């Protein structure tokens, strides 16, 4: 029998028992949707991790207080200077971050601000789109000026950002003159996006915005990747030497490379766990398919006898029931993938990053087909092996 006619017959058979077929597919739907989601979450997590770390190259080392809040002997801009004495360190910038109310004329936004030294801009790919960047003079003179992120400029001006350059804004009620706007960077890194942040000279931020509460992070750059370990040792030594109360103990030293690896690792572990769940679901649903196919073969025993009597060969009966099982599981697979697509916005709502992908669709469908073939084979074999006579006699 040609495939087209065989498929037609199988469709007729399947559609005759829609409820049973649907119930049989349920497990496959869940399994396939899970696999699709695993891939989506994996891809989403990967993208998020890469996004978060795209600004930091792997040679970046962050030194920050080990605990939130006050540190007995906090980091200072001077520490950054001291770090630079190490041959292994190419750059070191102190960075202060905070949140506050930023106002411009009638508009106000609750946003982040960051106090930076001029070099921070290049090392973080912050490019000025309008106006000018922060420079050494601003730093030295503690100029009360600011360069703001594109998104923040938009919010404050209600969509016409260029007007804000040269005007003043207030950050936590302190006036700063906007001297430039950075181009959009589009990340969603921890601590809020740079696009939504106001940047001020470090010295000015320390003095006017944070004062005695200043508790900076230092972002250092190792000379190259191989120098990261030695750089960390040098930083530790410097901290031990210059901070009496606990030395380096009170700080956390993180390098971007190992953080990236750790983040990728945990994303992968998550994916593997979900994948294991999906495979278990598919095995269970496969056993369901096998059961239903056994029942189907039993129910149709006399029909199988008739088909054999009119000339169906063993392989043809095998093919028919195998394809029927694959059809059921593939239908479940297709519905599962659709269900997966529909679930992605829900995940996004709960801030779980998920990205649909062709590989997710393919993997889901392949797994569903494999389930159908694997668990449909034995019942189909039973059907094919029936002796025509026994089958015809079956009541």
């Amino acid at each position, binding site marked *: 029998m040609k495939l087209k006619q065989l498929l037609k017959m199988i469709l*007729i058979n399947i559609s005759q028992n829609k409820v049973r077929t649907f119930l049989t597919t349920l497990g496959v739907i869940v399994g396939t949707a899970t696999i699709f989601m695993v891939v989506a979450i994996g891809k989403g997590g990967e993208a998020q991790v890469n996004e978060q770390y795209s600004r930091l190259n792997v040679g970046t080392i962050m030194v920050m207080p080990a605990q939130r809040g006050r540190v007995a002997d906090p980091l200072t801009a001077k520490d950054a200077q001291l770090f630079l004495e190490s041959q292994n360190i190419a750059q070191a910038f102190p960075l202060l971050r905070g949140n506050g109310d930023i106002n411009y004329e009638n508009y106000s936004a609750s946003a982040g601000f960051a106090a930076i030294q001029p070099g921070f801009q290049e090392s973080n790919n912050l490019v000025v789109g309008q106006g000018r960047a922060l420079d050494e003079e601003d730093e030295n003179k503690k100029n009360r000026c600011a360069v703001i992120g594109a998104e923040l400029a938009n919010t404050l001006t209600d969509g016409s950002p260029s007007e804000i350059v040269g005007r003043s804004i207030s950050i936590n009620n302190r006036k700063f003159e906007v001297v430039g706007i950075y181009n959009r960077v589009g990340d969603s890194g921890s601590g809020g996006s740079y696009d939504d942040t106001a940047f001020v000279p470090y010295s000015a931020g320390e003095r006017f915005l944070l004062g005695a509460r200043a508790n900076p992070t230092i972002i250092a750059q190792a000379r190259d990747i191989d120098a990261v370990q030695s750089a960390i040792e040098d930083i530790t030594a410097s901290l031990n030497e210059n901070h009496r109360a606990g030395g380096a103990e009170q700080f956390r030293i993180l390098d971007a490379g190992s953080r990236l690896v750790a983040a990728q690792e945990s994303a992968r572990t998550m994916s593997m766990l979900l994948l294991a769940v999906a495979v278990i679901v598919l095995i269970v649903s496969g056993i369901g398919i096998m059961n239903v196919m056994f029942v189907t073969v039993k129910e149709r025993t006399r029909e199988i006898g008739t088909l054999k009597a009119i000339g169906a060969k063993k392989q043809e009966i095998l093919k028919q029931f195998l394809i029927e099982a694959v059809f059921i599981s593939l239908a479940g697979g297709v519905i599962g993938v659709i269900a997966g697509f529909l679930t992605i916005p829900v995940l996004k709502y709960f801030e779980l990053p998920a990205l649909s992908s062709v590989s997710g669709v393919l993997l889901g469908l392949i797994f569903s087909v494999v389930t159908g073939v694997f668990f449909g084979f034995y019942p189909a074999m039973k059907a094919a092996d029936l002796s025509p006579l026994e089958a015809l006699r079956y009541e």
Partner: protein
Amino acid sequence: MTNSSNCVIAASNIVKVYQNGSEELKVLDDVSIRVLHSDFMAVLGPSGSGKSTLMNILGCLDIPTSGKYYLDGLDVLKASENELADIRNKKIGFIFQKFNLLPRLTALQNVVLPLLYRGIDEEEAMELAREKLTLLGLADRMGHKPNELSGGQQQRVAIARAIVGSPELLLADEPTGNLDSKSSEDAMVIFEELNRQGNTIVIITHDVEVAERVKKLVYIRDGKLYENN
């Protein structure tokens, strides 16, 4: 021994023994039967006499315990499983007591099935099937499923399915067993007409009225075949 190639069925010394636990049940006891081209034969016997067993062996659905069987010159007992399927598909048309139509397929789809297993193109097969159904007065019932048809109509669909591939032999096991007398009469008229057109037909029955309509009658009792009652 006669030349077996000029007859449709040449079966000799067929024995079929069923093993019921430790007991042996000889259902067919040294049965020899020859059916020539264009024969119209009935095998008449009471229930349990071994009729169906004989038909199953002649129809290549079962294998005898011993004996020889040539169908259209082919040594059936040497054929492989796939070859047997081929023989059933091309050389034999079955008509069952309970019609054995596939319940989910329409009359037309049922009739076309043997041709599809033969690998014939669907269009061509459909055409042949329509032709046979029309011949049997079912032109307006082709799209109906079996449960939408009367018993007589179902049996005519089954006959159409049996003859659609122009087999050498039509084998009918109690074809009127599930029919009322009117439909039985119709079915017999059809068989007579088919035989007139040259079809070789063997009907297995316990119904004397059916037996009276055929050209050649043999009797079966306790697994033995007799030319005369």
